[in-house]
């Protein structure tokens, strides 16, 4: 503080507390609601003294929403996306920065162009690809009339039908979301700051590219990886549109989507205590990751958007 402003300081702390309260209020209020009985939660206004039904509500919500399965699905999806994204981006960035080859610029440009194409803008066609991942190959095959060519060669009727559906599978939840221009870009920027001498020294000692990557580059990237793990885990866990599209089997649904079934509709019993209890349970994993890895999280958030 530059000068003494006691009055302003008091206001600063007052406003700050008000701000924190406003931000925290939805959660605090939902937590209280989750401890009430159905009778209390439907009173207007709901009493602000927590009730004693917390565990009862949680157990009911857990079994009714099948939260065990769904949180597990969310967890697998988030972990898969995080690991997949980081793996393919770090390898891609290594290839772009540390090698010289003919299609380097093209490869980089084609990855970079996808920077701002979220899945939301290409819903239907991406869904079609997921329904049959080999569709593009099949289209190419048909376009080249290879059926006729093969039939002619083998003198038999030949028909190639490639079909591999990703609907209702973990692969389908994970794979389309792991291409990330931002992560590749982040690793590229970082690799460019790594001193040239390290690579020269490694080459002089006769290290192969992959040894250099494993023994030098990977340990140096540790903080970047940690930061990205936090960001991407939250991103993956909170995905909504994509899992909504490609899962129809309730056993494959993710937790964030499954919550929808617990929201009381107009004609239902107003069991908000269950819905909010479940909502708090489901939001817990990413919130805990962010809180406990706060330092990495802030670093990742700011670096990623640079």
């Amino acid at each position, binding site marked *: 503080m530059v000068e003494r402003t006691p009055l302003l300081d008091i206001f600063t702390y007052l406003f700050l507390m008000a701000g924190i309260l406003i931000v925290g209020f939805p959660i605090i209020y939902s937590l209280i609601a989750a401890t009430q009985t159905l009778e209390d939660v439907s009173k207007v206004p709901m009493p602000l003294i927590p009730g004693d039904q917390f565990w009862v509500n949680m157990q009911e919500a857990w079994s009714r929403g099948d939260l065990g399965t769904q949180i597990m699905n969310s967890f697998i999806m988030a972990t898969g996306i995080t690991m997949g994204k980081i793996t393919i981006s770090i390898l891609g960035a290594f290839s772009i920065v*540390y*090698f010289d080859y003919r299609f380097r610029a093209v490869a980089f440009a084609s990855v970079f162009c996808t920077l701002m194409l979220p899945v939301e803008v290409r819903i*239907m066609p991406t869904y*079609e690809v997921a329904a049959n991942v080999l569709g593009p190959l099949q289209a190419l095959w048909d376009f080249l009339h290879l059926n006729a060519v093969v039939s002619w060669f083998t003198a038999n009727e030949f028909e190639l039908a490639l079909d591999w559906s990703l609907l209702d599978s973990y692969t389908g939840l994970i794979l389309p979301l792991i291409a990330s221009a931002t992560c590749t870009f982040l690793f590229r920027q970082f690799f460019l700051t790594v001193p040239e001498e390290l*690579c020269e020294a490694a080459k002089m000692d006769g290290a192969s590219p992959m040894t250099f990557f494993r023994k030098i580059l990977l340990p140096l990237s540790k903080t970047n990886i940690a930061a990205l793990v936090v960001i991407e885990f939250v991103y993956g866990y909170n995905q909504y549109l994509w899992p909504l599209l490609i899962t129809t089997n309730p056993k494959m649904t993710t937790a964030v989507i499954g919550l929808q079934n617990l929201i009381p509709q107009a004609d239902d019993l107003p069991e908000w205590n269950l819905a909010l209890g479940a*909502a708090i349970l*489901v939001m817990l994993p990413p919130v805990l990751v*962010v809180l406990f890895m*706060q330092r990495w999280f802030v670093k990742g958030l700011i670096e990623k958007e640079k």
Partner: protein
Amino acid sequence: MIKRSFFKSKYIPYLLILPQLLITLTFFYWPAIQGLIQSFLLSDPFGRRSTFVWFYNYIELFTDPLYLKSIMITLIFSVLVAGVSLFLGLFIATMANRALKAKAVVRTLLIWPYAVAPAISGILWLFLLHPSYGIVALGIKNWLGIDWNPVLKGSDAMIMVTLASAWKQISYNFVFFVAGMQAIPKSLIEAAAIDGASPLRRFWSITFPLLSPTFFFLSVMNIIYSFFETFGIIHTVTQGGPGGSTNIMVYKVYQDGFVGLNMGASSAQSVVLMSLIILITVIQFKFVEKKVQYTG
């Protein structure tokens, strides 16, 4: 750019970039091209045959009052969300920057809503603003004397999704504003204080102009957020209703394509959205590089 010292290998670099390229081609370029092609086609009701119809889908789209309304709603919605969350984020960050002793605690208390899924934020606010059970709704009814009913009134529904979307974004803006403020040299503030500038004056004449790159960047990010990521909020809270009053463009693509199975219209809308986001990105890159950069 490439390193001065690099490796030479015939096949390793291709192998390394292959997974990334395969995924990008399969799940980005192929669908994008498919969407572009489909937006020029019209399929018969059984999906057997499709005919090339030039810009028919686009002409239909831009003469459709529902779509024009959806564009309007998206614009209003994104400006509201960006405005509310930027203002609150900046305000809290300014306060936090003054409260030096409590910074770490404050950050912990404010950072976690970022990790809450948009759909869950929607559920929380759905309860708070529920016309018969919500406590905030009760306050609005009793103190402001407004007949609050987001189930029936479009403007109320819009306020509800705006609050749910902005709430989650406050912490994101907060993190960036605090980082931006920490990058401002202390000496500037001190010099101004010695010249007798009041804290408010210092904020408007020094801190705010120096934050303008952050501010601009965050505006773009918030608009992109309210265009796309708020899908979960709309889906859980209003489903585009009542009467299409919260039917933002992304939600309309989903409804027309996935629920209504109108491929041509949905693809044309996707293409419009894609062009829009490419435009925003280009503006951002151009503008951020040249105009609003003060700090070195």
